[in-house]
């Protein structure tokens, strides 16, 4: 039996460009359509309280799924995701707040659906994501030398540094004062420890779930590709991964950058949400831990598991409002129990559809 090399096989597996394009685009198109349906039909039906919950769930999915790329797929234990949120959130808020004042004279919402204000907001999300991704390179570099607890401490330090830097900024300038200044001059006026008040509230279910669709498609395609398997291989056995030709340093940095990019976007969505104020106290170490818990509970490396955990852990505090003081102890307890009973998390590395639960359900039905 002959086993020809890869290069000799590619021609025979070629698919027509149109087929490939359709296969490439439909999941995203479906996601955008679903986001639109949620916005237009679900939101009016469930009222503002539950609409906000749906919004929170979406943002939690973006944040936890992005953290899953580095913690779950890559096995690089990062507990500084709030730091990336902070960079993305403040960068985006700065752009929309001061940008609005420059363009339209006030920081109020501007234009309708996909109008000028919405476009500025989307630009802010991308800007925040890109800045966070750049920070991801810097935070990723120590991962080349450190592992386990030591790397976790570095990422923790990064989150705290971001928090302290933001606390040192001056008060937010009101529209009248900001109008005379250039955009760069306003960059140090981010509200300090009081938080960045007055950020226009552009975050809506549609935009959040478009980003949910993007991050899930990216995570899924990454996991199913050779690049993603290389990342998992580094997590499983770094020496063997290197011996199989995987550039472990590059793979780690790429995972940090991808994770940070979506962490930044999650932060930007958070910053423009109605009813939340962007402030350094909110995005502290506990926020990072909350996201880590979602990843660990859901299953390190399981996209669907982490989505389930993000949904559950966002609903739970709302459902048990009277217990909200005990939230962190309950999380901690849940985490300990999971570590003992199921150390790989709810799903391990597997996805919902790998486990065959639906087959079991059908069999039981008979």
């Amino acid at each position, binding site marked *: 039996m002959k086993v020809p090399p*890869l290069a000799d096989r*590619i021609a025979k597996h070629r698919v027509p460009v149109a087929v490939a394009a359709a296969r490439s685009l439909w999941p995203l198109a479906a996601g955008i359509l679903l986001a639109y349906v949620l916005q237009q039909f679900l939101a009016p039906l469930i009222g503002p309280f539950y609409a906000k919950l749906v919004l929170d769930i979406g943002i939690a999915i973006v944040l936890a799924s992005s953290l899953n790329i580095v913690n779950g797929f890559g096995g690089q234990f990062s507990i500084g995701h709030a730091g990336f949120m902070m960079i993305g959130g403040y960068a985006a808020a700065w752009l929309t707040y001061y940008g609005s004042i420059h363009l339209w004279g006030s920081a109020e919402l501007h234009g309708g659906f996909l109008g000028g204000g919405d476009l500025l907001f989307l630009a802010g999300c991308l800007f925040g994501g890109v800045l966070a991704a750049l920070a991801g390179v810097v935070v990723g570099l120590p991962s080349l030398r450190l592992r386990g607890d030591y790397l976790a401490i570095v990422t923790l330090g990064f989150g705290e540094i971001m928090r302290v830097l933001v606390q040192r900024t001056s008060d937010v300038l009101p529209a009248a004062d900001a109008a005379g200044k250039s955009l760069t001059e306003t960059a140090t006026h981010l509200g300090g420890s009081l938080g960045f008040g007055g950020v226009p509230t552009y975050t809506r279910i549609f935009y959040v779930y478009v980003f949910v669709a993007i991050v899930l498609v990216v995570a899924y395609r990454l996991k199913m590709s*050779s690049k993603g*398997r290389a990342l998992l291989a580094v997590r499983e056995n770094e020496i063997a991964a290197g*011996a199989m*030709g995987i550039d472990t340093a590059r793979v780690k940095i790429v995972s940090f950058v991808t994770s940070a990019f979506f962490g930044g976007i999650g932060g930007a969505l958070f910053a423009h949400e109605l009813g939340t104020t962007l402030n350094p106290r909110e995005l502290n170490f506990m926020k990072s831990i909350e996201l880590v818990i979602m990843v660990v509970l859901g299953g390190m490396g399981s996209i669907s598991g982490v989505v389930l955990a993000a949904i559950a852990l966002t609903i739970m505090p709302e459902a048990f409002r009277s217990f909200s003081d005990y939230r962190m102890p309950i999380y901690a307890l849940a985490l300990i129990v999971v570590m003992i009973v199921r150390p790989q998390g709810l799903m391990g590395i597997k996805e919902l559809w790998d486990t065959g639960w639906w087959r079991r359900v059908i069999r039981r039905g008979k």
Partner: protein
Amino acid sequence: MSALEAKGLSLAFGGLRAVDQLEIAVPAGALHGLIGPNGAGKTTVFNLLTGVYLPDTGEIRLGGARIDGKKPSAIAKAGLARTFQNIRLFGELTVLDNVRTAAGVRATSGLWRSLLRTPHYLAEEAAIAERAHELLDLLGIAHRAGEQAKSLPYGDQRRLEIARALATEPKVLLLDEPVAGMNTPEKHAMRGLIQALREQFGVAILLIEHDMGLVMDICEHITVLDHGVTIAAGQPAAIQKDPKVIEAYLGAPETEGN
């Protein structure tokens, strides 16, 4: 020209000379053995050749090009693959994914193509899957493709290690104790397999093995290490009779009066 060549290769861990002035030359398509008692430095030699350790002195050439000082991943891409004595599979991944991971190293699609799923990427992934299935078939573990690697029986884990190494399309294959822990029929099957691989892939093989029967049977040339020093090198028949080798394995013959 040798497929793999090491000249004057030395490595010391503190005061311990783990490998001392090693000379190895494996011609293309050859099957060479590297033997020696426990702690002789055999696995250290593999770690030097594959870039896990940097040699203190000496040079390593793969197909004539220097590879010493390069990263392990670059050396693997240049065409040197290995298996591990203490099995190092990607345990949580499926058997198929272990092989696909290694085969994917020859793919040219970057991150963006992978995320956008371009036609070239799709073709490559299909080719990777096809090739991985064929390798599993060849190694006789195709029926376990969907299982987690860590759940395989020991012998199958060793086979998977070989399948994974072959997936990187090597010119030279380093096998570290491929039959360790196997029973006689399994060993017999593995011997046939190693010889078959060499013919089918045209790959040169350097083999570490404690099973003398196997080594003497299939290797054309054997290098014997003891305490990092090459004590003998040559054809199996000559090695078997070499007094230094016998001494290293069995100890010095007792002399009168002792």
